[in-house]
């Protein structure tokens, strides 16, 4: 019973993520006045990746590639799509925020074990960037805790029921802006895509991934997209009474992120961290102070 829950939810998370990635490629293409690939392109990419033979350097690379996807899937289990959770829990937000790093750590260990220095450079940059975006996001979460006294994401969603004026995007605008900036970095989109940086470090962590390893990395990215947009939707956009409403709001969030990403160039990693700490962090601290003193 639980297994079926798990498998369906995992497949849904991956499918939604891949769909978003495909549509975002189409949107980027239209912005650049060309046609672009069909919107199901990411599904084809993943299946093609799994259909190729692959190479691996050692057992650590295999094992930790699995850990990477496992961490993100475990985080996806706690995103309240449409108000339901497959594994009922009292503190889904904390579990999401702590399962995501294990996904990234798994991928980091796996690509380091491939022995390519470019991969390690990419991971070093990715971790530094993580320090940049985790702080504003954590401060925003703390402002929620200060307001509601709980991290139960379902009750946060219910507090936004009853119309658009109740959504936290109106009630906590600074927090929303701070999380949007942090989310741009979390999904690795320009101007914060320094960890991939194809022209500089030959796609960074993915340099030695081939075949099914690349497929697993793609799936990990798609689940990450699902989790992160889901977080923003649940916290600020009122969640969703049904699954379709939730997915639609996630979609809008991801398209806004894509629109921003196609305009800007890439920040260096210390510029990105400084930007996130000063602007996103500043907005988040303002929000925290407002929440604490308006209670």
């Amino acid at each position, binding site marked *: 019973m639980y297994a079926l829950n798990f498998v369906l939810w995992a497949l849904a998370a991956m499918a939604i993520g891949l769909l978003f990635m495909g549509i975002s490629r189409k949107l980027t293409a239209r912005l650049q006045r060309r046609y672009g690939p069909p919107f199901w392109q990411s599904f084809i990419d993943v299946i093609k990746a799994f259909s190729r033979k692959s190479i691996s350097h050692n057992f650590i690379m295999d094992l930790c590639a699995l850990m990477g996807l496992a961490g993100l899937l475990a985080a996806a289990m706690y995103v309240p799509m449409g108000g339901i959770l497959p594994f009922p829990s009292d503190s889904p937000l904390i579990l999401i925020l702590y399962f995501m*790093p294990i996904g990234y750590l798994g991928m980091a260990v796996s690509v380091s074990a491939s022995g390519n220095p470019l991969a390690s450079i990419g991971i070093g940059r990715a971790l530094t960037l993580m320090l940049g975006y985790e702080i504003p996001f954590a401060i925003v979460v703390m402002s929620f805790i200060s307001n509601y006294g709980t991290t139960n994401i379902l009750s946060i969603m219910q507090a936004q029921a009853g119309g658009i004026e109740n959504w936290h995007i109106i009630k906590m605008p600074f927090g929303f802006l701070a999380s949007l900036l942090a989310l741009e970095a979390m999904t690795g989109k320009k101007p914060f895509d320094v960890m991939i940086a194809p022209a500089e470090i030959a796609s960074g962590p993915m340099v030695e991934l081939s075949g099914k390893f690349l497929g697993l990395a793609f799936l990990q990215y798609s689940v990450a997209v699902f989790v992160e947009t889901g977080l923003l939707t649940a916290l600020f956009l009122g969640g969703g009474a049904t699954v379709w409403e939730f997915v639609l709001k996630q979609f809008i969030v991801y398209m806004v992120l894509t629109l921003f990403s196609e305009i800007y160039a890439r920040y260096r990693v210390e510029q990105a961290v400084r930007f996130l700490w000063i602007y996103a962090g500043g907005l988040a601290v303002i929000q925290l102070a407002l929440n604490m003193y308006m209670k």
Partner: protein
Amino acid sequence: MTHWMTISISIALAAGLLSFALSKWKKVQWSLFLLNAAWQLFAVFQLWSLKGTVEKIKLPFTFLGIENIELTLVNSEIGYFFLMASVLITLIFAVFSFSYNDKKHATGIAPLWTLLMGANFALFLSADWITFIAAWELMGWTSYFIISHGKLKSAKAGLYYFILSLIGTSTLLAAVMLIIQKTGTLMLKEGIGILSSLWTADGSFVLTVAVLLTLTFFAKSAVFPFYMWPAKAHAEAPDDFSAFLSGVMIKYGVFGLMSMVLPLFGASYHGAAILGIPVFLFILGWIGAFTALWGTLLAIRENDMKRLMAYSTVSNIGFILAALSMNTYFGLAAALFHTVNHMVFKGGIFLSMASVKFRTGEREMHRLGGMGYRMPIAFFGFLISIIAAAGIPPTSGFASKWLVFQSLFNRHMFFMAIPIFLASTGAFLYLYRGLHSIYLGQLSPRFKDIKDAPPLQSLAMIILMLVMLAAGFFPGIIMGPVNEVLSAVSNQAVKADWTSISGFTSSVDLLIAGSVFLGAFVFAFILFLIGKKRRFVEMMDNYTAGETPEDWGLTPEDLHYAMKFYEPFEKMTAPALDKINAESWFSQITLEVSRFANAVKNWFASPHMGTLVMTLSVIIILVIGILL
């Protein structure tokens, strides 16, 4: 049998002295140490049901003309908790050390360590000031000699540690003398109890005593501004002892704060308070948060692995201090849980590195690399330990980090939680760097044929791994004893059962979370099997832009990226780190003192100056004599 405590301490001291005599047979020394550790564990199990018992030891001789000196030991709750944790961990370390100290790597520290275990036992169970100070001193100088272990560079590091610890000891003696004078009793608990009721009568006195005691425990636990010594001492100590230093010895300060400073601010404190926390503890909390942040920032720029882990210890002590200073039962629970967790995962990290050094003889991080492919058990020990250190489920580190944050949120200390969160996330950076530089990346051809860690060392590491995973899925293993301590100290216990903990904002069930993760792992594995076959290629067959690096004589060591890992981050934080440098402050103070001492010396150096000073002092004395 009664008198378990006295007997255990005597056995430890006797075994230590006996070991000194047997210094020619190192293996016998280490077996004595192992047996002592096993006996101590047995005694601790016997003491489980004997909580609260008191043992008095009458010293049979007169000391400096004082007769009837009586040492008291009490099996208190907090003391027993720390004792149990430290004795269990030491047994695992003893198993490791027995195998680590073979002919090539043997250091002569076994007798000193055995004595130190006796001091450890006495310190946690002491009931009067004399026993406490005696144990403190014994612990101090045995650890100094162990850190030095006969090498000049290590001796310098040991001296640095010893001098900073002397600052602590002098403030301790000052505080104890003040307390004994004021309260008139030698008993620890009564003295602190009397003091805590004196806030209204003589508040400044209690505050002075609190400050002095806090300085002692800060110096011992490497809290800001005493944070520099672990980097020198833990790094230069013998490898198996570094685990004990970082795991157990650093906690003596935490124990002191918990049992002596915190009770002063109990129910009878009605002084100034911010958000419900006494001002003194509020400042302590901020110092703890700052220490956590500072330790992390300093760890990120380190190149040497042991120094990096020493700064990580400093950072973790900051977490414990911040949680402790919340002055609630929740904060106490978080501090206790994190103490135990830190012992286990730091032990895992240091033992793993010691195994690597045992096999390769190399200590510099950037000269190693790829050890994980040849030493999988050491690699997994290290990996699970750093997952616990980063506070990620399904290991035990998650529960303790979560409890620390919950205790901060309980008191609405959100701004204090920001540096704590920064430290917690920054831990990823340096932990990953250690893992990559030593265990991943390219394997040097020099180490192509090294074997995995020897069986006893592997056993020690596997036991630690299992403890971390078990406590990760079933935090009740540790929460049970913690709740017992809490119910004895504060009448409230954290709501927890075997698999879940209830906090302030929510409860988390770790077994379900861990099972979800395992289920996801199985799902990913099925996906992995669906894909097409993979073949293994060697490490040097890598993407190097189509070139063949061996053509230019490039070796795997050149292709291993380990130096200056976080250079952008270092450049960003360099200005702050250069300005706030406690080591330079201390050196400036010592410089001024030595200049003054030189000046005084010069007064009496030349005959003319000497005559002048003498004449002036005689004239002044005559004038004063005439005036009075």
